[in-house]
C-alpha cells in the first residue's frame, strides 16, 4: 500500500485527489501520486522513488506533508538536494518546483500540488495519515477518526472519497479481489457509488457483479452474506457466477445506525435487523483466486458496523454541505431581488411616484420599475409565480425585457404580447407572471394594461374606482391577446397598484386582508406607510407568506 502508483501521462494520473510528482529521467517520464508522507527518495530499493545513480545517496531526501503543505528535507546527502537550482536543506514546495537529487539535469522531479487549495477530504486523510494512532486501533476506526476531522474542515465531496478509502481498507482486510459500494438511490434501487480492485484501480459497475446476491443480501436480515459458489448448487444457474467464475462473494448490507430506543414491553425486538438499508458493500474473488470463506466473521461484523456509520456520517457531511449551498442560493436570490427593488424614480413635473416592497421570509418574484419617456411616466408592477431563485431570475428577465421595450417606446399591449410569446415559447415550466403597466401623460391621460394582476385602485376625491378591465397573465397561454384601457386623471387623483401579497395577507384566523380593507385605507389616506401599517395591524403577529409591494402614482397636473 505504501508504494506509489505509477501511471501514464499527467492528464491520466490518478483522481486528482493527491499531489503529483512528475519524475523525468532521460526520455522517460512518469507520474507518481504523492499519496503518503513521508515520501522517501534515494538509491536504496526500498525508497518510494528510487533513482539508480551513484551520485544519489542511499537515503537522499524525504518529502513530507506539514500543515497542508509539502516540504522536501535533505537527509545529509553527499551531492545535495536542489529546488529550482538552489541547494536546500529543507524547503516548502510550490507548484511546478523542480527538484533534483544529487544528479543535475539528468533526472529531476516536478511537483504539482493537488488543485491549488487542498480541500479534499482524501487529501487531508493522506496528509494526516502519518500521524501516529495507537496500533490497537483498527483501520476502520482510524477512518472514523479521520472522517470526524475531515468533517470539521467542512470539506466537499466527502462521501466519494470516504467510500474509496473504505473499499481499500475492506479489500485489505478481506484480501478479496474486487470491492464495490452500492448506495440506495431515491427510487429505492441500489446504484454503484464506488468500485476498486485490490490494486487500487477504480472499477465500474459491470455484468460480472452478481446482482442477485446483492439483492438477497439487501432483503436478508443478516449482518453479512457469504456465498461460496462451489458449495451451493442452487447458485449454479445464476448468470454472472457461471459466466465469470465467481468463487466467493461477500455482501454486507449497510444499515442506518439506529439510536438505541427504550425497549418496549415486548422486550428486545429485532430492531437492528429491520433498520433501513442504505446500501451494500460487496466484495468478491474468482475461482482461480483465493477463497474468501476463511475471512473471520469478526472482521466482517466489524466492517458491517463501521462501514454503515461511516457512510451515514459522510452523508451527514454532505447534507450539511447541501444546506450550506441552499443558503447561498437564497443569498443569490435575495441579491437579485434587492437589485430589482432598487428603483431610481424619475422626477417629472406632472406626477409623483412612490413604491415600497415588504419581503417575506422566502424570496418572491415581485418587482416594480419606472421609466420616463417622451410618452410619459410609466410604472411597471409584476409578480412572478413561485418563490426562490427561479422566481427571482424570471422576474429579472421580465424586468429587463419590459424596460428595454418601454425605452424603445413600444405600445403597451405589444410589450406584454412580446413578453408572453417569449415566456410561452421558452416553456418556462408552469411559471408565469401577473403584470400591470401604467403610463401617465403630462395631460393626465392614463393608459394601462393589466395582465392577470390585482385590479388597480384609482382614488379620486376619496372615492375608489376598481377598473375590472384585464387580460390573461403572461407566460401561460401562447395565443393570449392583450388590450389596454384608458382613463383620464385629474390633478390630485392617485393610482395605487398592489401585488396579491397585500390582498392575501392573512391574519391568525386565516382571513385575507382583501380588497375592501385595501380600498378603505387607500381612500382615506395618501401614504404607502398607511397601507403597510393597516396590513400589519390586520395580520397581528402572523408572518407574511408572500411579498407585498405597493406603488402609488399621484397626478399633480
Amino acid at each position, binding site marked *: 500500500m505504501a508504494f506509489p502508483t505509477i501511471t501514464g501521462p499527467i492528464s491520466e494520473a490518478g483522481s486528482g485527489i493527491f499531489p503529483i510528482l512528475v519524475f523525468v529521467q532521460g526520455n522517460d517520464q512518469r507520474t507518481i501520486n504523492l499519496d503518503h508522507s513521508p515520501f522517501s527518495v534515494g538509491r536504496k530499493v526500498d525508497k518510494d522513488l528510487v533513482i539508480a545513480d551513484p551520485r544519489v545517496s542511499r537515503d537522499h531526501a524525504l518529502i513530507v506533508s506539514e500543515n497542508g503543505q509539502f516540504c522536501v528535507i535533505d537527509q545529509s546527502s553527499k551531492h545535495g538536494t536542489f529546488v529550482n537550482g538552489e541547494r536546500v536543506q529543507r524547503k516548502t514546495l510550490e507548484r511546478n518546483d523542480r527538484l533534483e537529487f544529487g544528479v543535475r539535469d539528468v533526472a529531476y522531479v516536478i511537483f504539482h500540488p493537488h488543485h491549488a487549495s487542498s480541500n479534499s477530504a482524501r487529501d487531508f486523510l493522506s496528509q494526516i495519515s502519518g500521524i501516529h494512532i495507537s496500533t490497537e486501533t483498527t483501520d476502520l476506526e482510524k477512518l472514523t477518526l479521520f472522517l470526524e476531522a475531515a468533517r470539521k474542515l467542512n470539506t466537499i465531496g466527502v462521501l466519494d472519497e470516504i467510500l474509496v478509502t473504505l473499499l481499500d481498507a475492506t479489500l485489505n482486510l478481506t484480501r478479496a479481489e474486487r470491492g464495490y459500494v452500492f448506495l440506495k438511490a431515491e427510487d429505492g434501487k441500489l446504484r454503484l457509488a464506488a468500485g476498486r480492485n485490490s490494486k487500487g484501480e477504480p472499477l465500474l459497475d459491470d455484468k460480472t457483479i452478481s446482482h442477485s446476491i446483492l439483492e438477497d443480501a439487501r432483503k436478508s436480515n443478516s449482518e453479512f452474506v457469504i456465498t461460496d459458489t462451489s458449495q451451493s448448487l442452487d447458485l449454479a444457474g445464476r448468470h454472472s457466477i457461471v459466466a465469470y467464475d465467481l468463487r466467493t462473494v461477500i455482501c454486507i448490507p449497510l444499515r442506518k445506525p439506529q439510536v438505541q430506543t427504550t425497549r418496549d414491553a415486548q422486550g428486545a425486538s429485532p430492531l437492528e435487523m429491520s433498520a433501513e438499508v442504505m446500501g451494500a458493500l460487496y466484495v468478491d474473488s474468482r475461482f482461480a483466486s483465493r477463497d474468501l470463506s476463511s475471512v473471520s466473521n469478526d472482521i466482517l461484523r466489524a466492517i458491517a458496523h463501521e462501514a454503515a456509520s461511516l457512510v451515514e456520517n459522510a452523508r451527514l457531511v454532505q447534507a450539511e454541505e447541501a444546506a450550506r449551498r441552499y443558503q447561498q442560493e437564497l443569498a443569490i436570490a435575495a441579491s437579485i431581488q434587492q437589485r430589482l427593488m432598487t428603483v431610481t424614480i424619475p422626477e417629472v413635473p406632472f406626477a409623483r411616484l412612490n413604491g415600497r416592497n415588504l419581503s417575506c421570509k422566502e424570496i418572491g418574484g415581485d418587482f416594480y420599475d419606472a421609466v420616463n419617456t417622451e410618452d410619459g411616466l410609466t410604472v411597471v408592477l409584476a409578480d412572478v409565480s413561485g418563490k426562490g431563485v427561479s422566481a427571482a431570475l424570471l422576474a429579472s428577465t421580465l424586468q429587463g425585457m419590459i424596460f428595454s421595450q418601454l425605452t424603445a417606446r413600444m405600445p403597451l399591449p405589444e410589450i406584454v404580447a412580446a413578453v408572453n410569446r417569449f415566456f410561452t415559447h421558452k416553456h418556462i415550466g*408552469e411559471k408565469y407572471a401577473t403584470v400591470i403597466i401604467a403610463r401617465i401623460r403630462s395631460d393626465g391621460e392614463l393608459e394601462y394594461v393589466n395582465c*392577470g394582476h390585482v385590479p388597480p385602485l384609482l382614488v379620486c376625491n376619496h372615492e375608489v374606482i376598481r377598473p375590472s378591465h384585464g387580460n*390573461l397573465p403572461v407566460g401561460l397561454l401562447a395565443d393570449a391577446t392583450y388590450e389596454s384601457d384608458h382613463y383620464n386623471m385629474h390633478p390630485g387623483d392617485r393610482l395605487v397598484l398592489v401585488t396579491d401579497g397585500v390582498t392575501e395577507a392573512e391574519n391568525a384566523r386565516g382571513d385575507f386582508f382583501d380588497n375592501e380593507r385595501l380600498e378603505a385605507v387607500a381612500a382615506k389616506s395618501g401614504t404607502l406607510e398607511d397601507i403597510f401599517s393597516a396590513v400589519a395591524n390586520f395580520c397581528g403577529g402572523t408572518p407574511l407568506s408572500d411579498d407585498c409591494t405597493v406603488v402609488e402614482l399621484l397626478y399633480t397636473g
Partner: protein
Amino acid sequence: MNLKIETRVTDGVTIVSCHGRIMFGEEATELRETLKRLLASTRQIVLNLSGVTYIDSGGLGTLVGVYSSARSGGADVKLTGLGQRLRDVLQVTKLVTVFEVYDTEQQAIAAFRRGAA
C-alpha cells in the same frame, strides 16, 4: 402534503376530486402527476375543486399547465365546484375565459355527453 386527490369514473368520465390546498410545491406536483397519469388513458376529465380551500399562484399555474397539455393532447379538462375565492382569482386573471367551468359535476359530465353526441 395538504392535498388529497380522489379519482372515480362516472358515465365514462373521470372525476378527480381535490381536497385541501393546491400550492406551489408538492401539492401542485401531486395534482400534475395524477392528471398526467390519467390523461394517458382517458380524454375526459372533470376536476372537482369543491374541497379546495386555497390555491396559490403556483397551483393556478399547474391548473393551466395541465389544462393546456390536455388540450394539445386532444383531451379535455372541465372544472366544477369552484369556491368564491377561486372564482375571484379566475376572474382577476381572466382565466375564466380559458377554462370551461360548470356549477355542478352533473352539468360538466353532461357537457361531455353533448360533445360526444
